[in-house]
């Protein structure tokens, strides 16, 4: 097919049309309106960077951004540890490894909204019962403080996504030639040495992929936030996605919310691209 072939463009029409109408035009439209006093229907005044200045002055937005960053850092680290750990477990010669894969992966298929509701029950009711049973004070009153809300979200997302990250690591672990590990074993390398010098370098590409996915998943989280903590207590566990939603649809400040959306896009793009760039570079070095 060539550029001037009609068929080339016909094949692309449906996707180009939908991408433009659903993503590109709204993005351009929104970018322009973020510099005005837009109320969702019309804008009467061009106000320059005022919205962008206002959003950084807003305590609530800054708090949500900081909370999201903390959440992302902690959950990305945990998810990669858990995911790799589970993958190493189910690629050993244990008999139950297929069953275990099925179980660990299961939470991924269920929507974040539903899982958040289930865990709300667990953190509030089951944790306090368990706390009474074993005499642990720390299990009382979960989700009623910022701290427990934070860890609640971390636990939920680790439980939900660890199986997914596991699947990615498995794909790379199973590609490691068995002879390589056997040869090292014969040469007297112990399990830790084999992991450090053979397995780990060879799963480095998996690390790139799963870092990319966990960062973008964690940063954009919304459903779990809504159903588990609802942003409470006092909006202290509200993440950026939810803060933008609230600014737009509860407070009706469309232009301000849109400017937050643009900042969100810039952060997501910069973080994802930088991280992919550095990981790719590191892979080549190995």
């Amino acid at each position: 097919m060539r550029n001037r072939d009609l068929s080339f463009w016909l094949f692309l029409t449906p996707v180009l049309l939908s991408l433009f109408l659903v993503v590109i035009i709204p993005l351009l439209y929104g970018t322009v309106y973020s510099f005005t006093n837009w109320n969702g229907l019309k804008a009467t005044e061009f106000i320059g960077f005022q919205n962008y200045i206002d959003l950084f002055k807003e305590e609530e937005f800054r708090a949500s951004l900081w909370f999201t960053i903390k959440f992302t850092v902690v959950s990305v680290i945990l998810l990669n540890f858990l995911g790799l750990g589970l993958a190493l477990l189910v690629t050993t010669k244990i008999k139950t490894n297929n069953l275990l894969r099925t179980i660990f992966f299961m939470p991924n298929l269920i929507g974040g909204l539903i899982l958040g509701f289930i865990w709300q029950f667990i953190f509030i009711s089951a944790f306090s019962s368990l706390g009474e049973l074993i005499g642990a004070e720390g299990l009382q009153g979960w989700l009623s403080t910022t701290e427990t809300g934070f860890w609640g979200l971390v636990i939920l997302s680790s439980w939900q996504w660890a199986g997914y990250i596991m699947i990615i690591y498995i794909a790379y672990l199973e590609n490691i030639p068995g002879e390589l590990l056997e040869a090292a074993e014969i040469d007297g390398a112990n399990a830790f040495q084999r992991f450090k010098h053979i397995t780990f370098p060879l799963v480095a590409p998996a690390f790139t992929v799963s870092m990319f996915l966990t960062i973008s998943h964690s940063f954009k989280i919304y459903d779990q936030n809504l159903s588990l903590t609802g942003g409470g207590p006092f909006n202290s566990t509200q993440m950026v996605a939810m803060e933008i939603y609230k600014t737009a649809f509860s407070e009706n400040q469309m232009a301000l919310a849109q400017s937050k959306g643009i900042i969100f896009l810039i952060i997501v793009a910069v973080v994802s691209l930088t991280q992919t760039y550095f990981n790719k570079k590191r892979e080549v070095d190995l």
Partner: protein
Amino acid sequence: MKQKKIGLVLLEIFGLLLAILWLSPFYLMLVNAFKTKREIFTNVLGIPEEFTFENFNRAFVELDFVNSFLNSLFISVVSVAIIILFSAMAGYALARNKSKLSNIIFYFFVGAMLIPFQSVMIPLVSIFGQAEMLNQASLIFMYLGFGCSLSIFLYHGAMTGISNSLDEAAKIDGANKFQTFWHIIFPLLKPISVTVGILNVIWIWNDFLLPSLVIGEANATIPLKMFYFFGQYTKQWHLALAGLTIAIIPVIIGYFFAQKQIIKGVSEGAVK
């Protein structure tokens, strides 16, 4: 050798304990869904003294489950079918045209994957709202817009394994471009179509935010209905948990029958 065997047994036990821990949220949901409102206050962790199905009956009715299920099914099936067809066409066209422009369009789609939903959500709703186009058909169209990038990327990758000589042979036989695609290329792309289908169905079936903005309560999908239901029965855990159980059942059944393909599809979708 013997030491190794013991190690393996210990690992096996550890794995099973971890699996039990992993499933415990589902256990807690299920046992409490069978309890009366009063029993949940006194006995959270144990199995119910008396199993009651009353919660399920009420939740089933309140969730309008048959309708919400059919709405979810309709939206997911139609959206995924459209995504598969149109993304495969685009992936094929982009892979067969080696020009610079074609390359630019491809990277344009790839780049669009980075755009978070929250940065287009407000104008999207505003534009479609002003055109009075907030309905099921628009929702499906939006899923194509948000889902096509990753799908095109996967199809484009898969096309490298399909030789151009097939196209030429079809051309000599008098097939036009669409016939070539439909009869020759599309069947060969079936493995990747399965992957694309699985990835999109998981996402669309569970999506909450977009339908909550685009369709009304009359056409509510399962997550949307669940959200309203939960708001109505907040802190009435016996009903809420029964509703949650009902909402998950279709997914678990689907997983039971297609777990191999699902895990394979998810793995391919992420790794490529």
